[in-house]
């Protein structure tokens, strides 16, 4: 008798937009008390090292995070970054009220 059992399907990978990754990185920094080491961000935002370096550079250019520390880099949110996250939280709550995920 042939085995009619369907092969176990892989769970579909959830696509994360660049915008969503930026928000995740900034949220990890905020969660870490605004002083986050790259390794904490890497695990917290679930990113590879190369992508993390790329995104951190882009966020610095946008002026929402700042780098400090000499031996080991430490990242913190700028005032602009804090305001952005506050605004994003409101947008997320607004969209969530209608059942839309952003």
């Amino acid at each position, binding site marked *: 008798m042939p085995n009619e059992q369907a092969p176990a399907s892989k769970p579909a990978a959830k696509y994360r937009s660049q*915008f969503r990754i930026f928000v995740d990185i900034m949220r990890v920094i905020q969660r870490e008390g605004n002083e986050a080491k790259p390794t904490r961000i890497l695990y917290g935002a679930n990113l590879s090292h190369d992508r993390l370096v790329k995104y951190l550079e882009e966020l610095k250019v946008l002026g929402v995070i700042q780098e400090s520390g000499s031996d080991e880099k430490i990242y913190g949110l700028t005032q602009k970054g804090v305001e*952005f996250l506050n605004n994003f939280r*409101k947008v997320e709550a607004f*969209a969530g*009220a209608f*059942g839309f995920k*952003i």
Partner: protein
Amino acid sequence: MEFIAFAIAMAVAFQAMKGYTLARERTLLYLNISFLLLGAGLLVDGLANLVVLLSKFHRNFIYLSRVGYTIDFLAQLVAYLILVVVYLQQTRAWSGQFAVAALPIVLLESNPFTELVLIFLLVYISAQTAINYNVSKTRNSLLVFGAFTSLALAHVFFLLFTVMPIFFPFAHISQLFGFLLLLGMLFRVNQAQ
């Protein structure tokens, strides 16, 4: 009452636009267009009724009330259809067949069936917002569910008004209550830290 509802619809549209500018999420753009249309329809209907009222129901101006209603109905129809499509896309049940099925509806003239069409759309949107509340259990989602349920109820009263005039004030109160619930949600969202 229509002018208050218009102002609230514009406030929701503005919030959705702010969100779209920040997150570039298309669903927020559709939400913005939907509430802009709702607001525009309410404004036109409100102005038309105001002119008729100010003219002391002069026969030369009576037709404006019908024009206002028709524009308001079409605006609501498109606005709620946009929301339905967005919810259908979210549940991945959307196909082009819905657009084809909706086409003849747009061509209908104003009559009790127009209210039935709006009730049908609003009941679907209410069901989606009820599901969202059941999942998220947040007060904001409860307010949105209450708002659309109240708007659906308003159109049930508008439908009943075609046979019994006593339902006219209930319809307007229910519509205003629905928009006030949306205003409550907006306040809560903007006060949250």
